[in-house]
């Protein structure tokens, strides 16, 4: 998977305006050449190790495990990577590809800002001009990352169309790309979009699962029983899951954003309120109305607040290989605080969705069972937003450095 045209069963493919078809074919060819070029792999491995900080630890969350009283929980610490999330695995791979193709300019969309920061970082590293599209609402709620991108020399363009979040940022990035197709490479930030993006992004992230597999075999001398990851477009989840797909004993759960509950326009759980459609280059599950107009979404987490899901996840869902659950805003916020206070790790709000589902499910499992959660990013970007929501946002300078609530 996928087939030569990028189909995962009935999903995937390449649904784009004609101007993009040939450039996507060229990208595909160059990517497959690079994939089989030892020099490309060596250079990628070098930067992943020396710049990004791979491998990341597989950390046994002993206190959380004990508190929940069920399965042993391990955290794959993608939050420890340079720039603070898994996104840089893919951004680095694609920037090396852009250099091979002789491009001079990089663009990307971003939701939480983590992919934007990762892209701005690799663009700075290799001397590319860089433009990041970000919904105006996301610019507000992830303001820290907007500053980081600007410091790294990127231009951040707020997008005011529609609901002003990730989907609109993707539309705007695609419009930029068709307009500057000869000079520009578009570093799409998730396992979504037209072929070859879903397969390419997956392959740049499979290092997460490859490492986790080796690490759990070292530490426990067996494979885990359950893998869990949050699913926005699906890149961190497919990165963890992919190397385990042929291990029938390994169960997998992707966790979507349940927002305020499964009510139209109040969530982003495509497998719970979505249907088959075609959006932004690919065929997959999407949230849409009866006429095929794309519905509004909501999530406390900007990185999961998206109306569509990657085509490989759609395929794995329909095959019954991966299960898809959702966590509401409320549960994700609880998990965010709980991980901070039991393990000393502040997770990204996106990753907190996976933690929330693990908190629900671990107590129902046996003590000898093993869960691996992909901790896809750290929560620095979310600190202000969460502080307001959980009532920790009083003045910190006026002598009120108290312990806060809960």
């Amino acid at each position, binding site marked *: 998977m996928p087939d030569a045209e990028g189909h995962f069963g009935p999903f995937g493919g*390449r649904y*784009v305006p*004609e101007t993009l078809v*040939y450039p996507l074919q060229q990208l595909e060819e160059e990517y497959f050449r690079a994939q089989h070029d030892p020099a490309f792999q060596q250079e990628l491995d070098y930067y992943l190790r020396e710049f990004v900080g791979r491998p990341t630890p597989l950390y046994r969350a002993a206190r959380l495990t004990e508190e929940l009283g069920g399965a042993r929980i391990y955290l794959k610490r993608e939050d420890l990577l340079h720039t603070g999330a898994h996104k840089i695995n893919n951004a680095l791979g694609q920037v090396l590809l852009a250099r091979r193709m002789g491009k001079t300019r990089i663009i990307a969309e971003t939701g939480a800002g983590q992919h934007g920061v990762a892209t701005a970082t690799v663009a700075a590293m290799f001397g590319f001009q860089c433009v990041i599209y970000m919904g105006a609402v996301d610019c507000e709620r992830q303001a820290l990352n907007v500053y980081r991108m600007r410091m790294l020399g990127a231009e951040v363009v707020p997008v005011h169309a529609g609901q002003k979040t990730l989907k609109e940022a993707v539309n705007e990035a695609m*419009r930029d790309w068709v307009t500057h197709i000869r000079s520009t490479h578009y570093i799409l930030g998730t396992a979504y979009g037209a072929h070859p993006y879903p397969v390419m992004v997956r392959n740049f992230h499979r290092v997460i699962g490859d490492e986790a597999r080796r690490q759990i075999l070292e530490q426990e001398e067996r494979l885990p029983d359950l893998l869990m990851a949050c699913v926005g477009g699906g890149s961190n989840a497919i990165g963890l899951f992919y190397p385990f797909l042929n291990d029938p004993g390994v169960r997998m759960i992707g966790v979507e954003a349940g927002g305020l509950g499964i009510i139209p326009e109040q969530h982003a759980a495509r497998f719970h309120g979505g249907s088959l459609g075609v959006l932004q280059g690919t065929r997959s599950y*999407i949230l849409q109305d009866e006429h*095929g107009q794309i519905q509004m979404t909501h999530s406390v987490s900007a990185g999961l607040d998206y109306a569509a899901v990657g085509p490989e996840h759609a395929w794995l869902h329909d095959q019954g290989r991966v299960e898809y659950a959702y966590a509401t805003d409320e549960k994700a916020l609880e998990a965010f605080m709980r991980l901070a206070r039991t393990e000393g790790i502040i997770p990204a709000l996106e990753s907190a969705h996976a933690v929330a589902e693990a908190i629900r499910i671990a107590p129902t499992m046996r003590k000898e069972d093993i869960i691996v959660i992909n901790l896809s990013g750290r929560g620095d970007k979310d600190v202000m937003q969460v502080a307001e929501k959980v009532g920790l946002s009083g003045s910190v300078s006026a002598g009120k450095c108290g312990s806060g609530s809960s």
Partner: protein
Amino acid sequence: MNRIESRFARLRSQQRKGLVVYIGAGDPHLEATRQLALEFDQAGVDVLELGVPFSDPLADGVVNQLAAQRGLASGTTPSSVLKTVADIRRDSQIPIVLYIYFNLLHRVGLDHFIAQAAAAGVDGLLILDLPPEEADDYEALMRKAGMCPIWLVAPTTPDARIERIARRAQGFIYYVSREGVTGMQSTVSTSIGDMTQRIRQHSQLPIAVGFGISNPDQAREVATHADAIVVGSAIVNRIAQLGSDPTLAAQVGAFVRSLADAVRSASASPA
């Protein structure tokens, strides 16, 4: 022969160039769309392209995005656009192409949508985000319904691909004359003549050239290289300015007449 094919056959026999006009359906409302269509028919428009409003028009520039938003705001749906086409058909035989994003067909089913469109009197479909590689079912259904699938060729399309597209095309081939989204330009692309010649090596079909043409001078210039020209955003922009003004159809019609005259004057000079 459907209406598109017979219109181009007539243009060819009269050695005339054609004018294709794009507007967003339901902008500001569908009754205005109907009136504009009838006005354009009188003004000498050869093909009317009706944009079906979509929530995420990623191939469109800001002018057409705003038109789609106004269309959605006026309650326009794919089925109400088809109903409007049926209404137009009571008074006019102007060839009509729907300019549409694939999800809107996909949602109700290709066979269903295509059958309904044909029944309403639509003559062709131009699906922005459906390349020929994904279109086997679509083509079979279009053939059965007697509608023309209109395919795009872009400046980035290599020769081998032009040939493949040309083999599948019916009605006319739409050459998108520059890399980018829809929208007006102060100058037109200089490579149009080269590209239309390359397309002609693979196809006898008429070639319409569009994207960015905004005034009669540009229309005349581009028409010397093409069989027809397409004007969209410049008209949509006028509709946006006039909104629900009762003279909307008359005023936009006057502008379209100036484009039709320019295209006709290009017909007199050899290509």
